[in-house]
């Protein structure tokens, strides 16, 4: 789960990392009120997209009137697909230097990775490799002060700024650990009047660990349809094609998309119906596919733990209760294959054995419907 900037900064501050004073506001009046105390202020759209500044989501205000004005411009605006409902009014800071610091998980090393650079303020991908310091941490033993010192020194920092950055690195790692983060990033970490302070922050929490962190406000991610399928408990990603897809297993679902593309089709979605899903969730997932109003639906099942007869019954249930008004291609092999095939055949649905043939067929029928 990605946290809004104001929440991320709140967590950093709780761990002792300096951040500018700020206040969350929902209305232009609240912003005007906030700017009375915080001035000059930056008024920042709270949406989970990068590049807010360039897109007009960050504006400045010297006084309450200006605050009201820029707030009314930002609140309600559409920023890369998201409607701005909240702004964060934050003390504008004089920036002398901009650094980059982050902690994330290095999948290969299977350890936390600290990245830092004295060239901050741009996306880290755009920083030359030689300007990035990368160091791992042994998680059981934790981050040690020497490592923070080392990193700050390797960034090329000296004196008091080096010390402040080293302190912040220690605390940043603490945030990473105690908040169960996948990523915590301060970019830019700025020097302002001799003090090092977090001007922007990203904090992505590990969804799998949210049970340890109660009381966080829900942040809705994904399209409305993605949010709906998430509630069923299945993995679903909306794509821009026209063939709706269901498969069992994440790898199998990806391979199914690949197969459609291979034959010239365009998948409308990724849907992992689960490694051993039973009739009810499978039927619900089928319902979502129908709602997408695709040119065709392609169901690709290798029955291992998943039983082919369960899948067949789910399809039949959807067909009978609400209808499947688009061409349906089913590939069904594995556990209880014959039972499944028979169930479908009674409803006039033919099932394929070979994934390749089925994918070709799905592309063909979608083409007819175009």
């Amino acid at each position, binding site marked *: 789960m990605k946290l809004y900037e104001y929440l991320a900064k709140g967590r950093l501050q709780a761990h002792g990392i300096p951040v500018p004073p700020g206040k969350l506001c929902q209305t232009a009046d609240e912003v005007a009120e906030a700017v009375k105390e915080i001035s000059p202020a930056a008024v920042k759209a709270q949406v989970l997209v990068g590049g807010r500044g360039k897109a007009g989501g960050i504006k400045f205000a010297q006084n309450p009137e200006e605050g009201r004005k820029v707030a009314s411009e930002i609140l309600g605006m559409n920023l890369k697909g998201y409607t701005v409902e909240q702004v964060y009014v934050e003390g504008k800071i004089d920036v002398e230097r901009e650094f980059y610091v982050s902690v994330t998980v290095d*999948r290969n090393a299977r350890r936390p990775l600290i990245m830092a650079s004295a060239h901050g303020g741009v996306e880290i991908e755009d920083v030359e490799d030689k300007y990035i310091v990368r160091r791992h941490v042994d998680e059981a033993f934790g981050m040690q002060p020497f490592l923070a010192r080392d990193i700050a020194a390797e960034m090329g920092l000296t004196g008091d700024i080096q010390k402040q950055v080293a302190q912040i690195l220690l605390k940043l790692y603490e945030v990473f650990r105690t908040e169960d983060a996948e990523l915590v990033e301060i970019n830019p970490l700025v020097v302002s009047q001799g003090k090092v302070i977090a001007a922007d922050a990203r904090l992505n929490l590990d969804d799998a660990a949210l049970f340890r962190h109660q009381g966080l406000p829900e942040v809705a991610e994904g399209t409305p349809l993605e949010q709906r399928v998430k509630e069923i408990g299945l993995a679903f990603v909306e794509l821009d094609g026209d063939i709706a897809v269901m498969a069992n297993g994440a*790898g199998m679902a990806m391979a199914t998309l690949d197969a459609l593309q291979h034959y010239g089709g365009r998948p409308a979605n990724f849907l992992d119906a689960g490694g051993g899903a039973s009739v009810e969730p499978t039927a619900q997932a089928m319902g979502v596919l129908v709602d997408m109003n695709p040119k065709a639906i392609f169901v690709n099942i290798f029955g291992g733990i998943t039983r082919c007869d369960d899948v067949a019954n789910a399809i039949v249930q959807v067909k009978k209760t609400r209808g499947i008004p688009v061409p349906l291609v089913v590939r069904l092999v594995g556990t209880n294959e014959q039972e499944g095939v028979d169930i479908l055949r009674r409803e006039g649905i033919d099932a394929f054995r070979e994934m390749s043939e089925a994918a070709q067929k799905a592309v063909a029928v979608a083409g007819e419907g175009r």
Partner: protein
Amino acid sequence: MAIIINDETRVVVQGMTGNQGSFHTGQMLLYGTKVVAGTSPSKAGQVHQGLPVFASVREAVVERGANASIIFVPAAGAKDAAFEAIDAGCSVVVMIPEHVPVQDSILIVEYARFKGAKVIGPNTFGLISPGKSKMGIMPNHIYKPGPVGLVARSGTLSYEIAAALTNAGLGQTTAVGMGGDPVVGQVFNDVLHEFERDPETKACVLVGEIGGSAEEEAAEFIKTMTKPVVAYLAGRAAPPGKRMGHAGAIIERGRGTLESKRMALEAAGATVVEMPWEVASAVKKLLG
């Protein structure tokens, strides 16, 4: 021969009395796996699936000689369960649960390294040495003994490929599920090392997907391997920034793309096929 598990593997099932644990214990027993005990702190002393239920893995090790564990407990308790198994001396720990917090996985993997144990997963379908032992949730009937070493991130996709191999007369020494999470105990690299050393394995199949760079890392080792490797990679149709089901299957910041993996593997001498149904014939060709 086989890798990691064989007919001397004595398995304790952590969380045996739950639905999933119970069902798959039955399946493993049917397959011939030497399941010797289960654990459940609340049902200790009972008999389940004809096996003793202990309160702790330690008891299963002491009383029944267990040397490997398979974990079916909920994700929130997975770290404790894995530590318990490793601490009790299990040399192989298979972690079925998905949604294990990634920082728990990091600590589990670090502890396993510290203690010299092998962790498979989390979020794995397990592993099977056909005809010898199965520790996992894969269907029993699709594998048979033979010369192919199979390692995959994803379950069903690997079943598809294993079944195709079997149908083509190509049995397996061992099929290993690496797991779909960003941090797992055994990566392609580790498993390929074992296959390279295993005298019965004549060819390897690697089933990868987008995200991370375990495939690129594997390519480095494949360069030095004497045995042929066929790879299939899933996710070429996947857009960047979206998690494709697995927590680990995501192209982020331009990393983890299919193209980078394909190029690395081909440069290392692996045969990379376009579609899953092309794997079996590619292996057959390489084995001559």
